[in-house]
């Protein structure tokens, strides 16, 4: 026994440690990337189960399955878990796996902080989920936690919610700092900024956004904490505070946050479309500038979430035009993706299917966003299912499809095995149909006036709600297939070549498949 341990001690520099402590103590970017990805997948399933509780309740009008109070807890936790537990850690996981390999670095710049930033996350979500079993129930004020709903009228568990948001924020900030320091200082010689792969660019910009706005979110929840426990009146009108101020602070964080959840997707999709079109990406530098402009504009559009709070006309016009301006760089990106595919020799492996679906469906979500940006129209759309349809179109077939595409695209590199192409395609088509059946009808019921966040609705909305619920269960169940495909790939399958895909470019494809535990310990030569 002890001999075995000694043995593995000698091997320390060549491979991972054995057993559970490998994962607890690891400072290896690939291990931490894997931990992040599995964690986000677990959260995706939990948050998804909550979405199915919501859709089951909305299958028919009237109260059927859950109490309204519990319904409110479900919509709140679904949003928080999917955003902070699903999408964001998945992107951090991908950054961990890919950024060092793409820039020719041996690891992340701050490996111990990397370990810490992952391992505090499970505690944050344990605290958040444990509030379900507390007296008064889990937070029930929606993921946007507007004051005074989240202060004066909040259940006692709100304090646990605040603490868990603090931990999630600390984790994201540490992850972001790590990414920036890595990208700015550890690129192999020859990898200049304008030669960096677009995923690296997208994460550099995302990391700066995270560092800028996560502390503001921490400030907002700290103010809530002080209002609740220490008698301050930041958001309490009786004491001279202002609930509208909460919304300004929240959305100052919240709007950059939505780009935090989409910029890495832009990077991923650019790589995949380039590979399966067997062409160089069209307009690399315009892609970089488009992402930079989107990131900068994201700081001056926040009030488009609050057009109906009674902003002065000048502010409404400013925020309307600033918001519409974002369609320009976004349009440039969509144009470049299509131009990359134009006259390419396309093949449609699973990652490419997800990437093309991303381009089409994200554009639909972008267009409904443009509709919502129009102030007079927004007065009608505000807080209806049209908004729900809009942000689910940019987040599910947007962010989440890009993550799935990334998993299919890079899993041969991670595991050394090819996934089952037939099952992958089946997963894609089930997800594609499921997503559209779920969310497209929500445009109709939203335009017809169904408000969001209610557990019940008027009879005229019944048909489309039923369709939407059917789609949601189809989408939800297909993700079990995804889990199966990933497990099957990790455990075995056709061996992957080093380049994996015929058209793949980039440093990560020059190392062996599966990627060795330590890569680029001596920097590669890049011309």
């Amino acid at each position, binding site marked *: 026994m002890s001999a075995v341990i000694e043995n593995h001690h000698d091997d320390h520099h060549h491979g991972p440690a054995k057993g559970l402590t490998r994962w607890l103590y690891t400072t290896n970017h690939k291990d931490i990337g894997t931990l992040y990805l599995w964690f986000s997948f677990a959260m995706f399933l939990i948050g998804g189960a909550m979405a199915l509780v919501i859709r089951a309740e909305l299958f028919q009008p009237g109260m059927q399955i859950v109490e309204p109070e519990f319904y409110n807890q479900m919509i709140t936790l679904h949003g928080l878990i999917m955003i902070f537990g699903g999408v964001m850690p998945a992107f951090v996981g991908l950054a961990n796996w890919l950024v060092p390999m793409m820039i020719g670095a041996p690891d992340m*710049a*701050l490996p111990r902080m990397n370990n810490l930033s992952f391992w505090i996350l499970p505690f944050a979500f344990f605290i958040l989920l444990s509030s379900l079993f507390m007296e008064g129930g889990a937070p029930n004020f929606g993921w946007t936690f507007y004051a005074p709903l989240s202060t004066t009228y909040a259940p006692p568990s709100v304090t646990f919610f605040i603490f868990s948001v603090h931990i999630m924020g600390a984790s994201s*900030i540490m992850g972001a*700092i790590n990414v*920036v*320091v890595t990208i*700015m*200082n*550890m690129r192999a010689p020859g990898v200049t900024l304008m030669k960096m792969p677009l995923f690296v660019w997208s994460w550099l910009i995302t990391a700066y956004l995270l*560092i*800028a*706005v*996560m*502390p*503001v*979110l*921490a*400030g*907002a929840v700290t*103010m809530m904490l002080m209002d609740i426990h220490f*008698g*301050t*009146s*930041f958001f309490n*009108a*009786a*004491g*001279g505070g*202002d609930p*509208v*101020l909460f919304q*300004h*602070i929240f959305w*100052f*964080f919240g709007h950059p946050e939505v780009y935090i959840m989409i910029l890495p997707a832009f990077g991923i999709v650019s790589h995949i479309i380039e590979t399966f079109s067997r062409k160089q990406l069209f307009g690399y530098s315009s892609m970089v500038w488009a992402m930079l402009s989107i990131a900068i504009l994201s700081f001056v559009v926040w009030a488009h979430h609050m057009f109906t709070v*009674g*902003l*002065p006309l000048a*502010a409404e016009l400013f925020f309307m035009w600033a918001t519409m301006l974002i369609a320009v760089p976004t349009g440039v990106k969509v144009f470049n993706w299509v131009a990359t595919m134009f006259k390419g020799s396309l093949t449609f492996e699973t990652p490419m299917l997800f990437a093309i679906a991303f381009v089409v469906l994200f554009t639909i979500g972008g267009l409904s966003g443009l509709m919502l940006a129009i102030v007079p129209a927004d007065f009608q759309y505000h807080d209806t299912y049209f908004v729900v349809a809009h942000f689910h179109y940019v987040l599910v077939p947007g962010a989440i499809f890009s993550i799935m595409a990334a998993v299919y695209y890079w899993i041969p590199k991670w595991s050394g095995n090819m996934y089952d192409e037939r099952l992958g395609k089946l997963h894609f088509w089930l997800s594609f149909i499921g997503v559209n059946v779920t969310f497209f009808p929500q445009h109709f019921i939203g335009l017809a006036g169904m408000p969001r966040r209610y557990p019940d609705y008027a009879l005229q909305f019944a048909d489309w709600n039923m369709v939407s619920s059917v789609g949601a269960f189809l989408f939800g169940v297909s993700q079990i297939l995804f889990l199966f495909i990933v497990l099957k790939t990790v455990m075995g399958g056709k061996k992957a070549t080093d380049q994996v895909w015929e058209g793949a470019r980039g440093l990560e494809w020059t190392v062996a498949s599966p990627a060795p535990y330590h890569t680029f310990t001596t920097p590669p030569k890049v011309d």
Partner: protein
Amino acid sequence: MNPEAKKTLRRLVIAVPLMFAFGFALVPLYNVFCEVTGINGKVFQSDDAKELVIEDGRPLGLQFISTNNENMPWIFKPSEEVMTISTGEYYTATYYVKNTTNKTMTAQAVPSVAPSNAAAHLKKLECFCFEQQELAPGEDALLPVRLLVSDELPKNIKNIILSYTIFDVTEYDDETVAQVDSEGHHGMEH
């Protein structure tokens, strides 16, 4: 780690508390912004009355509204719901208030003006909303607000609504609310 990386790290680590502080700085920034632009229907006490010269006073409808915040049992209503006034002249309006409970309570009224671009032109020389009201069980009072609407009010505004919401602040620390008061008085200096 090389010194360049340390420099990057140091900058980023400093940025985090700065952005945290910026979040808190948004609170005074927001108040100053609302005060300067007069938006958000916030009215601050003014003492620059002498500068206001009556030139061509025009008639204007002034409507008074009262709202009780949730769980506030007092009777609270304007003595007159509508007044016809002239711009550039002082008027005093009153609100009737009565503590209907059997315990001594403290209340704070929070004003709001609609349309919001009228707020900057509504000058209050005196208002019960500048301080808290403490009433014994069953006690009642007439609370005055002395105000003037400046001639500079945009011509398209024919009616102004002045609304007060009354909050039960018995449980609150007096000091907390006193801070608000001083913020209100801060408006005097500009």
